[in-house]
């Protein structure tokens, strides 16, 4: 029925099955939309946040999906600026995943603020000293860049491409894409970094506070670095999940191997920097403010030292080693383990840098504050996931996302 829209030379599932899939995910999406409307109409009393937890699940989700979406800027940088041509076979998907992640982050932010209609104040009354201002500017600009990067892909749809104007527009946009990739990389470095800075500048919160270079705390650099390391892992992970669901090979192994290797180098170097940062913070910064390392990991029922070990050793060193050793990363099971662990690791890091910061007491007579999100918070956090799946389903069905698909899956 919709075969005229499907790219030539590839096979897609029957339309009823596709629609059934959209409906099932759509129900989850509607659940999230309902929760979102509740939050907008009734206010943030629909959440379990409180005055100790001003930042909670949503801000974590924002930071995590932006880090995971980092595959778009870093793969773009490698493909267009460093000229790694093989990556053209995965860049479309990296851009799509990035687009989903960033649009989701903006949506969550729109729910998260107490007065959403005043969100533009962040631009109008901008405080140049605030990391959040930098986040808002760079995030909005980079989202525009991602949209520009995604448009040529949409224009490649069979029917749209028939219109000469859109055909030429798409062709010309492809030619200048390096400029946008460079702009995107520049903007990404700043907003990934400034998201790290959001926690790092909190000098009233010794768990988060870090010294740094000029106005940027070390977390600024660590966040950019970790996003560049783990973002591509997430791109590989989603590619592999897509391959599993569609039952097709979509990207050749050498492309995945190249991206995995680069991720390994980035993750390996990042984790060394993270270990150095942790040691300096634990032995110099925190003690100078009156805290021992273990003060941040005791007297509560959840945040034990295990979380630091899991983040650094299990989700940092281990995947870095797997991705760096050719023999390991060419083993499928180990590769999957590594990309899953790296994706979890960066999410765990963002969790710690948001929620543990809020949970840990600062005044000597204060107590730990733990929190469990409300169903409205969970539903609105799942909402972008459902939206992402639907956008991937539609894009995969109607757009030539994977240039190697035809070659790898010939139709008889």
């Amino acid at each position, binding site marked *: 029925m919709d075969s005229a829209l499907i790219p030539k030379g590839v096979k897609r599932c029957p339309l009823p099955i596709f629609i059934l899939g959209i409906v099932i995910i759509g129900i989850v999406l509607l659940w999230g939309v309902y929760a979102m409307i509740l939050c907008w109409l009734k206010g943030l009393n629909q959440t379990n946040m409180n005055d100790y937890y001003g930042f909670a699940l949503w801000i974590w989700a924002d930071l995590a999906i932006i880090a995971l979406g980092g595959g778009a800027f870093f793969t773009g940088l490698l493909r267009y600026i460093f000229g790694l041509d093989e990556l053209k076979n995965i860049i479309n998907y990296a851009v799509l995943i990035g687009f989903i992640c960033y649009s989701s982050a903006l949506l969550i932010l729109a729910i998260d603020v107490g007065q959403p209609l005043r969100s533009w104040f962040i631009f109008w009354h*901008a405080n140049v000293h605030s990391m959040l201002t930098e986040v808002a500017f760079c995030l909005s600009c980079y989202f525009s860049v991602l949209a520009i990067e995604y448009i040529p892909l949409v224009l490649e749809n069979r029917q749209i491409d028939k219109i000469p104007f859109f055909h030429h527009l798409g062709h010309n946009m492809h030619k200048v894409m390096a400029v946008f990739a460079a702009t995107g990389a520049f903007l990404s470095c700043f907003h990934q970094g400034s998201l790290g800075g959001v926690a790092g500048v909190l000098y009233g919160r010794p768990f988060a506070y870090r010294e740094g270079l000029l106005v940027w705390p070390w977390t600024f650099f660590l966040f950019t670095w970790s996003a560049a390391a783990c973002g591509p892992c997430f791109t590989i992970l989603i590619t592999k999940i897509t391959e599993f669901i569609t039952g097709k090979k979509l990207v050749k192994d050498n492309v995945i191997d190249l991206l995995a290797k680069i991720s390994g180098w980035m993750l390996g170097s990042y984790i060394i920097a993270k270990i150095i940062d942790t040691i300096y913070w634990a032995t110099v910064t925190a003690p100078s403010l*009156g805290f021992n390392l273990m003060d941040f990991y005791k007297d509560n029922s959840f945040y034990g030292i295990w979380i630091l070990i899991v983040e650094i050793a299990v989700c940092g060193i281990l995947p870095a080693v797997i991705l760096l050793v050719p023999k390991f990363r060419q083993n499928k099971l180990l590769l999957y383990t590594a990309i899953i662990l790296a994706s979890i690791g960066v999410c765990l890091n963002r969790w710690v840098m948001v929620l543990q910061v809020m949970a840990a007491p600062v005044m000597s007579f204060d107590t730990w504050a733990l929190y469990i999100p409300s169903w409205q918070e969970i539903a609105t956090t799942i909402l972008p996931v459902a939206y992402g799946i639907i956008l991937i389903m539609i894009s995969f069905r109607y757009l030539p996302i994977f240039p190697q698909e035809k070659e790898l899956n010939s139709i008889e």
Partner: protein
Amino acid sequence: MKKEHNHMKNKKFGMCIDLDKCTGCGSCMVACMSENNVPFREDETDKRKSITWITVYKITNNRPFPDTEVCYMPRPCMHCEGHDGHSPCVSVCPATATDYDMATGIVSQIYTRCFGCRYCMGACPYHARYFNWWDPVWPAEMEKYLSPDVSPRMRGVVEKCNFCYSRYQRALDKAYCEGRSDIEEDEYQTACTQGCPAGAITFGDLNNKSHAVYKLKKSPNAFRLLERLGTNPKVYYLSSKEWVRKAGDNYIKGENPKNIKKSHH
């Protein structure tokens, strides 16, 4: 010379709270809520959602009976100066909705500009900032008792102690009408100061040698909360008990508070 002149001209309003006198009665909290139209709800069991610009903490020396000692510690906004006015909350607000006033040292909150991102709350180590999770609703008969000088806040914005800034404005207006350029110490006092039955709270200009707070802050028993972080607060506490003074900050094992260099004020 000019710099010195400006320094003399600028006020730095602050507070000294004598913890030896505080009985923990909570009158300061009631006075504050009444003066500043602080909203409350029928069910206030979840204290982490209650708005109390000044909160009385109960702290103990953590020793077993019979050596247990208790101290009550009222905690308003500390109106941190940080370094050159970069208080923890002011520097992070993305929309410049909170400001450090160099002329008074008061950290203000612009309710109509705040869009409720709550970054300032995360930045404040004292938990002195509160979010309006609900729209403010007062019992019908209570609306007549609301302070006409203080605007109520809408749902979705952050609020906090402003050292009863409306009282300062009223005092300035009065002085202006009477042809004076400045106000006397007793013309501007916060509601909590006046509401304290034990006289534990003293308020005034920390820069003014004739004000009581100027002398009190120099007491050997004076300390501030979390001085080591460099927040540079303008609320001083007085206590004759060493364990109370020590509770004002964090120390690693074996550290002697007397040897710790704290930020200059």
